[in-house]
């Protein structure tokens, strides 16, 4: 192997012999193949392909050769240099790829490390539950109506056929604002929103009323696992020509299956509400046993419905014409249906909540479980 010749004078040098040229090329190729990393390859490149490498020198000598020898020497040197450059490029590529791969390996992390620097937020299931219900009705072309929680007594009671001596007024155990003879109450149901809708919008053939009213209501119930002085209701009201209990049943069946799944339906039982006549209690297929009344496959009865196969969901009926009258709607021409149920209770069913109070405690572990949509 010939090393660089520092005191080289081309004029004095004889033509590079083919053997020397071959040896220089082979030495270069061997060195390239031996280069273990890009650093070494760089050194090899300067030694075997640099300006002072034997092949470069040989190339430079070609010009000093007699013309007849130039062509052949030129060809030989060119081939040798070509082979070396090609090998260099190939090795460069391999080593670069290896280098990149190694970096990626070295940069590997433990992806199981926790990443919980930022807290996760959530919306309350009472909010998202009310939205879910609203969306079911909006999809049917209904609108969502709202009203104040502190309401005029006339709108909360009288307009809804609950006269001053109606037993329901005490049954409902109302919060009265001071002074009590101001006739202002914390609304005991969302029905005054229905009254307001009828009073302000009226009904025409082109614009029937189909509204759903979710909201917060109050009754003077002591706070326990199943009662709360504040809870949430959703009520619905449809006023149109030719409305019947069949439409009420169709609407509630649809609501039930959207809320609880296919196969969940409703059952009516005669009942009494001043706002409606005829009135009915609405039962819902028990979604735990799906109406069988049994716990699983076994002989035990279902705990949720106590073996009934049905659970009480809410009340409903045909809007009492007296209510239509008080709200300025022609009861000869239009009829309507109304229904109401607890949102809290509905969510307790749907999500298997045991204690109503978990809804109002504000424990983030409860709320974050539900995320931002139900």
């Amino acid at each position, binding site marked *: 192997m010939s090393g660089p010749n520092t005191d080289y004078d081309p004029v004095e040098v004889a033509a590079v012999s083919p053997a020397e040229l071959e040896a220089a090329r082979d030495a270069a190729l061997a060195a390239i193949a031996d280069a273990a990393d890009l650093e070494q390859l760089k050194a090899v490149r300067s030694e075997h392909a640099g300006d002072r490498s034997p092949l470069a020198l040989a190339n430079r000598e070609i010009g000093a050769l007699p013309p007849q020898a130039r062509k052949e020497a030129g060809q030989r040197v060119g081939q040798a240099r070509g082979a070396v450059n090609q090998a260099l490029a190939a090795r460069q590529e391999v080593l670069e790829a290896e280098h990149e791969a190694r970096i990626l390996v070295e940069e590997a992390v433990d992806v199981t490390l926790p990443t919980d*620097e930022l*807290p996760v*937020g959530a919306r309350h299931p009472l909010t998202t539950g009310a939205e879910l219900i609203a969306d079911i009705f909006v999809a049917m072309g209904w*609108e969502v109506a709202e009203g104040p929680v502190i309401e005029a007594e006339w709108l909360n009671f009288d307009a809804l056929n609950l006269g001053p*001596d109606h037993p329901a007024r005490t049954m409902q155990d109302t919060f009265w604002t001071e002074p009590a003879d101001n006739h202002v109450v914390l609304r005991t149901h969302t029905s005054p929103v229905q009254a307001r809708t009828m009073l302000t919008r009226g009904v025409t053939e082109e614009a029937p009323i189909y509204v759903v009213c979710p909201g917060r209501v109050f009754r003077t119930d002591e706070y326990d696992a199943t009662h709360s002085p504040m809870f949430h209701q959703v009520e619905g009201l449809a006023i149109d020509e030719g409305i019947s209990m069949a439409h009420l049943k169709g*609407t509630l069946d649809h609501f039930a299956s959207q809320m609880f799944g296919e196969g969940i339906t409703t059952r009516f039982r005669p009942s009494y509400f001043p706002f409606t006549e005829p009135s009915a209690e609405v039962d819902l297929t028990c979604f735990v046993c799906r109406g069988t009344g049994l716990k699983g496959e076994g002989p035990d009865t279902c705990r949720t419905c106590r073996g009934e196969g049905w659970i009480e969901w809410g009340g409903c009926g045909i809007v009492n014409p007296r209510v239509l009258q008080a709200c300025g709607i022609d009861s000869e021409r239009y009829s309507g249906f109304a229904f109401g149920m607890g949102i809290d209770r509905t969510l307790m069913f749907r999500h298997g909540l045991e204690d109503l109070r978990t809804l109002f405690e504000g424990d983030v572990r409860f709320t974050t479980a539900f995320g931002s949509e139900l």
Partner: protein
Amino acid sequence: MKAPVSWIRELVDLPAEVTTEVLTDRLTALGLKLEGIDSADITGPLVIGRVLTKEPEPQKNGKTINWCTVDVGEANGTGEPQGIVCGAHNFAPGDLVVVILPGGVLPGNFVISARKTYGHVSAGMICSVRELGIGEDHDGILVLPPDAGVPGDDVFGLLGLDDEVIEFEINPDRAYALSLRGVAREAALGFGVPFADPAVRELPAADGKAWEVVVDDPAGCPVFAARLVSGFDPAAPTPEFIKRRVEQAGMRSISLAVDITNYVMLELGQPIHGYDADKVVGALGVRRAREGEQVTTLDDAVRKLSVEDLVITDDSGPIGLAGVMGGATTEMSGSTTRILVEAAHWDAVSMFRTGRRHKLTSEAGKRNERGVDPLLPGVAADRVVELLVEHGGATAEPGFTLVGTAPERTAITIATDLPARLSGIDITAMTTVESLRAVGATVTEQDAGTIEVVPPAWRPDINDPYDLVEEVVRIVGYDQVPSVLPRRATGRGLTRTQRLRRRVGRTLAGAGLVEVVSFPFVGEATFDKLGLPAGDPLRVTVGLANPLSSEEPAYTTTLLPGLLEAASRNVGRGAPGVALFETGTVAFPADNGAAPIYGVHTRPSEAELEKLVEALPVQPQHLAVVLAGERRRAGWWGAGTDAGWTDALAVVRRLAADLGVRVEVGAAARMPWHPGRCALVSIDGVQLGHAGELHPSVCAAYGLPARSAAVELDLDALMAAAADVTPGPDFSTMPLAKEDVALVVDAGVTVAAVEAALREGAGDLLESIRLFDVYTGEQIEEGQKSLAFALRFRAPDRTLTEAETGAARDAAVARAAELTGAVQR
């Protein structure tokens, strides 16, 4: 209402295959909702035994037991006397008693077996009323009447233990079902079988001679019936069947005379009052009470009467609260032999008001305030007399006083197809007519598909065509209603406000906040805890006349108390940090006077409706946030950071950015915030609320980490400011030119002021400006600070030259110098 099945079956001939379950299912479908079924929890053999011998045997423990032999006939399989140890003493040889034999089970799953005790083998038990679960009254052995039967007879029937008692939930419109008469009528209706109406009685002619009665208020008391018996034996025992039925219905057996009035009330639904006739002075009167009058009722309460209360009087004045509770002065006692029987029909509203006024609930009041059949008074009084004669040895005195007559029922005209139209069920005219007749109405067919219906006397709830529809549909069956979706709804989707409210919630949840729903009740202590000064406007609340807790007698004016309590609860339960939000109503008094009460026969006018709305408190929607403790968690990446005033403002700005609203922020001092770390947030100069660090005293009061922060904003105002339709932004894609400037200003100059000045001076080429450093220290004079801003310039149409950018920067700095005294470093 509790109704024994045996009593129902006595009044209606139900087929044998109608089990109690079938019966209750059918009645529930008709509107009498099943609450529960009581049945004796006893398994036999339970038989009559005759005590043959009874040997007292004193024991070492001081007790004396009785070693008895009892003849139980063939019930024990041998016919030999049964040896039984008994601890009670209230019986004697020869008495008939109730014996449970080994193998039997008493209530409470008490299994009886032959066992060795006190040196004998006791093979069974002689039972007390309590052990049988049929009463609480006596601890002693139940001794049967001598004619009860012979030893070995099964006693289930005799004691009514084979009887089930159905408890119904009775809706206000079915007051008639607060009687066996009503329940049995429904059962008959449900199974299409005959009904023996116990109210059908042959009555003597009314002659006014039973007792003199003067009704001054026929509106309050349309019908008053009185009868008199004498020679009543006050010591006569109540027959077993009356006693049992009264107790099955959930009432206490008191004395024969009282039990009979209760029995007849249960049977017919008509409340009855019995007076000791010897204590009544002169004529009975019915009138409204007078100012200052009072009466002592049977419960020994002295009741001050209202001029609206209906009272019964004699010459001594009021002697009872009419229809609700009798008085003490004329009460029947253990020496009463002459009984004056009163059965009257009362105005339901007056009964309701009196009951409510005196906080009195009685079985009589419950029925009278819901409406009783006005044809019943004479019938009920006659039935009571019959029973007093039969079981109390009394003599019916001649004479029957009946004042007033039952009000006429008005006929209701309805179209025969109305039930079909309103129910959606295919109900024929014939079914309509038959159903209404089945409930007791008188139906007259008119021409052109209409009928005239007179409701039965016992149904005061039926007044409108729709009431009749309910009767028809419940008989046809609510389960027949088809399920049809209405198709005409043409709603416009959610309103803008509804969509914005969802957007606010999602944005806050996206910022890592958790929503809370809390109660809106507050009191002075709540505001004290917030450190609100006396006279703070937030202390002016809408008060509650009947709060659940006297500590929290008002509707809240701020959402912070509920949120702070929730934060405190979370921290108390071990949360290292908590970020909460709530949206909800707060209320401020309107002081516009009372809300009117209008009639209900016509729609109120627009002006009247406006008056209603004006009387209501002002009820804006608020938004509040509380950030306490760790906001960004510590971890393997490094230290965490606790929530502080910046986080509160960051939430506000994030929300504003999402809604496309520009909020302004300025310093403020307002409890419950830290006076130096509280920002007033406003839009176009209109105050929206506050944000910042909580006052240390508030953090301490709620047990929250120091530097906890809070926000409370008027959500209505914020949402109103949100861009309705956001115009698409216009932005340049030309190259950006950056210039950083560091300005030294007095420490008291706000960043907002400097930034505003820079913005103003920089002109239209300025794209954005952002403070990136605040420095105080050695290189700056005391009392000053250095603010470093990154200015970004861009032109809409060209690459800016260095000269242009430099000129804009210089102009910005010059304006800042002019307006805020800033000096470039």
